[in-house]
């Protein structure tokens, strides 16, 4: 090795998360991924929980609690500043907590924080909080990401530019792709050895595997693909670790209906389920069996897993006692998470063995929230309860599974009064016994956090039960020979995009005006009128369909524990409380000006998101279109012109094969080939359009998109040419002494081309919708994936905008091809 330059340690940490956070403001919205990115990195609280679950000082030096447990005095750190330079002091701390507990606050913990009676600042760095009643849980509450410290100056813009006291500051967010945080030089604590944190979002199991395997990602705290873990664990380049989470995956009974108030039935189902098989089938052996709504790492956990060891014979017997000797039919609603879908299938299989026939119903999150969680309109469901200390939901009025037991209620009351640790321990264990023996739900398994990291990455520790890794202490042990390149962001992509669009339209416009005298102005106007009419109808359909959808987008945004007040605040913010026709008029008016509204899920203008996504999708679609059009033309011509029958026959068979291959199967086969032969797979889309076109990985999706269209066009074109060849004017041309190929090239093509136009006009929109699947397979953050994300997040504004865009493109290409058809085809004069 001739390595003269000193090796520089890698100082960029690439982290992948399964989901993209809707915003980075952990004080609003319940999504746990917000905390994964921003808690501890950007934002810090007064206290935090250590690995063993005890509160420790963070932005406070220490604290005192007075005797009756109602008054807390925090002595704050004096060397802390926010990343925008504002100082952190008692005023800011008081502001943060007051903001969180305010009546119109969108904070998820707003109700819990109402326990605070008053907040005072006796000195600039002292904060005194008085509670309405003593609560041993209060410090844990303050350690939650919802109670982090924010600055009065920047609090109103946290969703787009989060500013906190942490070791990192927010730098940049490419939606659908990456969030970058940079280390602060003016951080109060120990400076992190990592200079930049890059968060990527990968939920697809195969994409996750590929990203880790190729070294694009150093750390994947919640790896989505347990099937690949065994292989990664054997690879010395990676570290695989399984962290217990606070998530209990349960099979919930709807005990609001009499059917499941039957304890024997619940017990029968509990006994019929083979939980080791579930863990094996769903998580490939990772994960632990639970016996009640308590994670095994909890010090108060009681192991009762032997109570419902799978026993189909006993289960059948219980089912008979419960009054169902002949079994029964049940419906299970499954949210779209993979663990739920897989568990559901296995549960259906296992319950089938005791005569319970289960119908599976895959539903979306918004539908789950609306139908299962809110309206209690379900029988069974599988769900991961990820919140820590959430056993209180078994005593909550109006909770979705509707479990009630007086014994449980009194025990909880006693627990709240109890301060003796041993007594508390006893009571917590009794709670678990009740839940287990009563079969309150079927407690399936503890959801594991399967973390995969680069073997050289060290210094990560994990707080518990607050589910966040401490990224500030991470560092790489090995030095790397290459200097770390900082990723430069090319902000001029959008201008490139604009140029592309303008060029395309100019070209089309030129073609039209060139032949415009062939079309009368009245016919032209009529076509424009029809185009606009169609566009308007499309807008009505899109808006109409979306406004009758079940599920409240505000609820989806705010999560399960949002208070009605917070919901109303969000509804008012997005104008969801107005009647539909007013919203439509408003939307139409603004859409015409290019303003599609603010995305529910990202809190930024939908047009910005679409523009970012088009940076991928537009080159993808246009290049594919070009490939398809030129390839189809040449291929079709070759079929007609080739002299050798056998070769021609071969080409015809090729087109037939191409026509019968579904594009997304081609995509999957290409993906396999790329994985197998180690072809480059990752597209660096953070570059100019020309660099993008220079990457081989960009062409896999292009092939998958263009191949079916190209063969389709080739066949249509060759058939058209063959038909025209029979016509008199070709005969005449041949009679004048032109060879067959000359006659075809000089005369037939001009007549065959116009018939291709409508086909081309069809293939462009077909490719645009084809991106939905192809971008998903190749994991490109384009328009198609944005649409699926928007649908999953019930982001109506974004769905509307994308649907309208695709409809407009479809209608517009038809309009243009119609005009061109008139212009080119002499017979339509």
């Amino acid at each position: 090795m001739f390595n003269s330059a000193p090796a520089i340690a890698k100082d960029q940490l690439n982290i992948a998360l399964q989901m993209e956070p809707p915003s980075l403001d952990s004080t609003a919205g319940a999504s746990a991924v917000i905390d994964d990115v921003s808690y501890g990195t950007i934002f810090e609280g007064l206290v935090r929980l250590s690995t063993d679950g005890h509160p420790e000082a963070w932005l406070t030096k220490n604290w005192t609690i007075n005797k009756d447990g109602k008054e807390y005095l925090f002595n704050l750190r004096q060397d802390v500043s926010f990343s925008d330079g504002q100082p952190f002091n008692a005023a800011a701390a008081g502001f943060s907590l007051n903001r969180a507990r305010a009546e119109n606050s969108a904070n998820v913990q707003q109700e819990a924080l109402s326990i605070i009676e008053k907040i005072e600042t006796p000195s600039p760095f002292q904060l005194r909080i008085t509670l309405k009643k003593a609560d041993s849980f209060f410090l844990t509450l303050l350690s939650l990401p919802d109670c982090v410290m924010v600055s009065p100056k920047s609090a109103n813009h946290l969703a787009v530019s989060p500013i906190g006291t942490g070791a990192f500051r927010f730098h940049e967010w490419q939606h659908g792709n990456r969030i970058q945080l940079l280390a602060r030089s003016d951080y109060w604590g120990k400076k992190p050895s990592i200079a930049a944190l890059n968060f990527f979002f990968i939920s697809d199991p195969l994409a996750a595997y590929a990203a880790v395997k190729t070294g694009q990602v150093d750390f994947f705290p919640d790896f989505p693909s347990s099937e690949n873990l065994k292989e990664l664990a054997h690879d010395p380049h990676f570290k695989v670790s399984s962290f217990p989470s606070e998530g209990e995956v349960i099979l919930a009974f709807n005990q609001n209906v009499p059917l499941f108030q039957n304890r024997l039935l619940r017990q029968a189902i509990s006994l019929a389920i083979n939980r080791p098989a579930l863990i094996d089938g769903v998580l490939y052996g990772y994960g632990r069996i639970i016996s009640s709504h308590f994670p095994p790492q909890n010090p108060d956990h009681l192991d009762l897993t032997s109570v419902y060891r799978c026993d189909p014979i006993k289960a059948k017997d219980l089912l008979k006692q419960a009054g169902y000797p002949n079994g029964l039919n049940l419906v299970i609603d499954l949210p779209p998470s993979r663990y739920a879908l897989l568990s559901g299938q296995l549960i259906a299989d296992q319950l089938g063995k005791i005569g319970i026939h289960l119908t599976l119903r895959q539903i979306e999150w918004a539908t789950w929230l609306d139908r299962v969680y809110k309206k209690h309109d379900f029988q069974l469901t599988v769900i991961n309860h990820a919140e820590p200390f959430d056993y209180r939901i078994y005593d909550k009025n109006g909770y979705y599974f509707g479990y009630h037991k007086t014994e449980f209620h009194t025990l909880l009351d006693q627990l709240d009064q109890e301060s003796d640790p041993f007594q508390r321990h006893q009571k917590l264990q009794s709670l678990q016994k009740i839940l287990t023996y009563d079969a309150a739900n079927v407690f399936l398994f503890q959801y594991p956090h399967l973390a995969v990291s680069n073997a050289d990455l060290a210094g990560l520790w994990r707080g518990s039960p607050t589910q966040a890794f401490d990224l500030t202490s991470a560092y790489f042990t090995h030095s790397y020979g290459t200097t770390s390149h900082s990723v430069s962001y090319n902000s001029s992509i959008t201008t490139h995009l604009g140029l592309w669009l303008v060029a395309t339209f100019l070209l089309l416009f030129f073609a039209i005006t060139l032949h415009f005298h062939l079309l009368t102005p009245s016919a032209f106007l009529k076509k424009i009128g029809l185009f606009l009419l169609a566009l308007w109808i499309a807008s009505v359909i899109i808006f109409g369909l979306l406004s009758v959808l079940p599920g409240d987008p505000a609820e989806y945004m705010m999560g399960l524990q949002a208070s009605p007040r917070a919901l109303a605040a969000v509804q008012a913010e997005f104008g969801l409380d107005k009647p539909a026709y007013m919203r439509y008029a408003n939307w139409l008016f603004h859409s015409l000006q290019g303003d599609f509204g603010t995305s529910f899920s990202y809190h930024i203008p939908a047009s910005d998101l679409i523009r970012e996504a088009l940076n991928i999708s537009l080159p993808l679609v246009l290049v594919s279109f070009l490939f398809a059009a030129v390839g189809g033309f040449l291929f079709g011509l070759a079929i007609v012109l080739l002299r050798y029958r056998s070769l021609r026959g071969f080409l015809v068979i090729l087109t037939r094969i191409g026509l019968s291959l579904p594009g997304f199967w081609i995509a999957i086969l290409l993906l396999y080939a790329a994985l197998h032969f180690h072809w480059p797979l990752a597209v660096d889309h953070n570059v100019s359009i020309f660099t993008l076109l220079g990457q081989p990985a960009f062409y896999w999706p292009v092939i998958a998109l263009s191949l079916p269209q190209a063969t389709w066009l080739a066949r249509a074109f060759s058939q058209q040419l063959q038909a025209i060849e029979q016509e008199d004017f070709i005969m005449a041309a041949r009679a004048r002494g032109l060879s067959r190929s000359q006659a075809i090239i000089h005369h037939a093509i001009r007549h065959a081309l116009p018939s291709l136009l409508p086909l081309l006009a069809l293939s462009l929109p077909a490719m645009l919708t084809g991106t939905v699947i192809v971008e998903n397979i190749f994991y490109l953050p384009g328009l198609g994936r944005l649409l699926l994300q928007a649908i999953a997040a019930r982001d109506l504004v974004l769905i509307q905008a994308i649907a309208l865009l695709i409809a407009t493109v479809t209608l517009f290409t038809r309009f243009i091809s119609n005009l061109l058809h008139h212009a080119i085809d002499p017979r339509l004069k």
Partner: protein
Amino acid sequence: MISNFRSLPILLRLGLLGLILFLSVSIGGYLLYGLVPPITLAERLQAPSWHHFFGTDAFGRDVLKEVVIAAACSSLIVFPAVGLGFIIGVPIGLIAAVRRDGLGEMLMQASDILFAFPALIAALLLQLLCGSGGQNVMLAIAVYAIPVFARVACNHGTSIASFDFIAAAQLSGKGRIAIAFQHIFPNITVPLLTQASSQCGFAFIAEAALSYIGIGIQPPVPSLGRMLLEAQNLLNIAPWLAIWPGIMLFWIISSCQMIGEGLIRYQAQNRL
């Protein structure tokens, strides 16, 4: 009428053979195995062998059984859907062909707008509205077949309508609707059937694509699209899973294509 199978163009014969074979395999599979292949976790992710010709999937289900049942389910969705589109679309097109006035134009314009509305988005919206399930996919495919058949019926019908025998029928006092169905329709059956067969091919792709993104037939009943999705997740562990559903799709789509092309040849032969 077709009197002799051997006199048909070779493509048509091949395509029909492929279709019949496909249908008998899938129906046979359904009759043999039922709708839900059994789960045997102990036999998960086995490569193709004598015991499991096509290997097994992540739940130890036999892939051969799965693809066969999935093929049956796809057929149950696609053929009725295209049939429905045919039944509704053709009359619209025929009426538009004989009535060159406002109504005809309006019908075609409406169907054009319907056609221009992005199919995938419509299917996704439909799923949001009515939930997932085979019947909704069927509905979406049918709705998108309507304008296609209307357009084909209208285009061919218009050119037939200019023939003298139509004028003769009009002079003999027949109504326009009667003319459309008695005189025009029999003359455009071949292009319509051609369209129907290629529409079936597209519909199989569409059905698989929709179940790939989670709309469509629900588990535990297997579907080709969802099998491909699962196969994609296991691509580096069990690549064989990605092969069979694709081959099944290729088989039925190419059969449909061959029937369509064979029909064109058939018409060309019979004209001579």
